[in-house]
């Protein structure tokens, strides 16, 4: 069904960014536009999801060039849900940035670039054209380069070099894959590709192309041998930026992997085994890294790597139950990881440091804030009935039925180390008495009430969404059930894009 409204979540951020460029150096105006823009974006995303849920897959042919010739935008349930989660995370980060980002950074265009990043994310989720996906990836990475380097501190720039090199390299691999794919099929439209790829005679060439996509998306989503840029760069930018990156950027890689492997390259035995090995190693290495770090954000960076493995494992098993688990985990992870980095930023505001050895006594001083943080941390660990618990049931069930015992072991190791590091963090940061020899530099206490609310509100919003996902798991399960059905049987998607006749 053709619906021109599906581009609204992309356009709202484009307009916000342009308006903010007009209001250059007027930081108060920019903050207001940003909060309004992300709020409207969330409303539009809710509407989009409701539309897609009731009417099925929606499409939009750019300039009315019919698919497969023109660029087509497609909103199926997976895209629409991810657009909604991106918008909620964007809203929270936008609130947090209004106080949590320094004025110098805002003067050099923090907010416009932030909105270009959100635009790129929404575009990547909604496009139905593989080359267009590449272009949206580039929009995302160039915005993220600017956000990462904004401020120009030494560690920040050093992190940015690694981040930039690996991401450009990932794009090059991705583009190589697209080139070969176009060479063997003569099409770029993803729905059309899913039909044409089966008619290709030389299926081994298809396998090689799939490897290029695994490489490209693997670097972006930070899986095992390709992850090292993430922990060496995510701890450097301001917390608001790290929250956007940690919550959303690696998940775009996972989304692209889910999309490409469900629609174009249906995973064969080799791909499944490869992805499964990657997933197991990612979980193990990520959890090992998280155990040894004392800086909160470095620890969280390794936890991102660890939990990416859960989703990759779900894709690797590629059964209905496994996909349900992976998708549920993806939705939960976006909300929780964004919130964790916001909490890290709040701790930094409260204490002036992120080193666990120098922190302590937060629970005694701020019991209410600590309570909210505890809920988020418990959700991440997956204490029932919070949100991290439900997807793991599905992942375990799928792994047991398909005899992937290595993955079961990795899941247990990953969950257990997550519990360990979070318990350690809770004890060190919130319960332990503040160390005597450290002078506390509290930037939070002198702030006016309004600004304090701006810092705490986004954490509460995301915490409520996480609680909703956890306590209302029935609805989410129904949603991921529908999405995984769409992923396994792509004929509604293909029909919506190419028309009923095909």
């Amino acid at each position, binding site marked *: 069904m053709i619906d021109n409204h599906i581009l609204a979540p992309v356009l709202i951020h484009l307009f916000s960014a342009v308006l903010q460029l007009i209001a250059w150096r007027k930081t108060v105006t920019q903050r207001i536009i940003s909060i309004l823009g992300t709020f409207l974006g969330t409303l539009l995303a809710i509407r989009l999801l409701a539309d897609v849920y009731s009417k099925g897959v929606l499409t939009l042919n750019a300039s009315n060039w019919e698919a497969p010739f023109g660029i087509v935008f497609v909103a199926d349930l997976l895209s629409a849900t991810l657009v909604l989660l991106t918008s909620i995370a964007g809203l929270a980060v936008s609130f947090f940035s209004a106080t949590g980002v320094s004025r110098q950074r805002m003067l050099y265009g923090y907010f416009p670039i932030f909105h270009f990043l959100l635009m790129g994310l929404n575009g990547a989720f909604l496009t139905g054209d593989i080359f267009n996906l590449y272009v949206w990836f*580039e929009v995302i990475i160039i915005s993220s380069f600017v956000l990462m380097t904004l401020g120009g501190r030494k560690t920040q*720039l*050093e992190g940015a070099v690694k981040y930039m090199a690996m991401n450009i390299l990932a794009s090059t691999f991705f583009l190589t894959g697209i080139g070969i794919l176009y*060479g063997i099929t003569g099409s770029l439209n993803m729905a059309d590709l899913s039909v044409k790829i089966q008619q290709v005679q030389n299926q081994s060439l298809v396998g090689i192309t799939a490897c290029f996509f695994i490489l490209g998306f693997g670097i972006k989503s930070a899986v095992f041998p390709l992850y090292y840029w993430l922990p060496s760069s995510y701890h450097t930018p301001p917390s608001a930026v790290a929250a956007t990156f940690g919550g959303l950027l690696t998940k775009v890689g996972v989304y692209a992997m889910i999309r490409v492997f469900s629609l174009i390259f249906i995973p064969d035995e080799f791909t499944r085994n490869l992805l499964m090995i990657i997933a197991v190693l990612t979980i193990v290495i990520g959890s090992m890294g998280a155990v040894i770090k004392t800086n909160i954000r470095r620890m969280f960076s390794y936890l991102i790597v660890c939990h990416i493995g859960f989703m990759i494992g779900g894709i690797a098993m590629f059964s209905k139950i496994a996909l349900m688990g992976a998708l549920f985990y993806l939705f939960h992870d976006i909300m929780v990881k964004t919130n964790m980095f916001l909490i890290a930023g709040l701790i*930094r505001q409260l204490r002036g440091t992120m080193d666990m050895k120098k922190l302590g006594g937060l629970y005694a001083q701020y019991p209410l804030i600590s309570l909210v943080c505890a809920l988020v941390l418990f959700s991440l660990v997956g204490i029932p009935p919070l949100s991290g618990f439900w997807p793991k049931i599905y992942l375990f069930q799928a792994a047991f039925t398909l005899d992937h015992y290595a993955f079961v072991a990795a899941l247990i190791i990953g969950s257990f180390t997550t519990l360990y590091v979070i318990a350690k963090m809770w004890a060190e940061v919130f319960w332990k008495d503040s160390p005597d020899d450290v002078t506390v530099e509290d930037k939070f206490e002198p702030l006016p009430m309004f600004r304090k609310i701006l810092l705490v509100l986004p954490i509460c919003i995301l915490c409520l969404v996480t609680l909703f996902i956890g306590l209302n798991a029935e609805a989410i399960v129904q949603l991921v059930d529908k999405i995984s059905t769409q992923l396994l049987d792509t004929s509604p998607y293909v029909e919506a894009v190419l028309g009923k006749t095909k």
Partner: protein
Amino acid sequence: MELILIILLGMLYAAGVYLILRRSMVKLLLGIMLLGGGTNILIFLLGGIVKGKPPVIAEEAKLFQDVFADPIPQALILTAIVISFALTAFAIVLLKRVYALVNSDDLDDLNTPEEEDI
């Protein structure tokens, strides 16, 4: 023609990978640029090279009867060139700033220990 392009393509990829594996930041950048160039030629090559057959259809015809030059790879390459131009420009400025701050071209020197000014 195809053979020359294939050899060129292989050389560009090989040189790009070799340069990326070096420790110097400038060589890293050059390597990325060479790889990008190699990818563009790959797309051009895989689009099929046809000489002197523009994709213009005769007025009375409805379908192409003959082999024609595919315009899409060129559009893709053009987009990719513009994007890589922007990325390269950004990368050069970034590397220059890093060089000014770290005073070294060696990627192994980019490990300043944690500072608490975030």
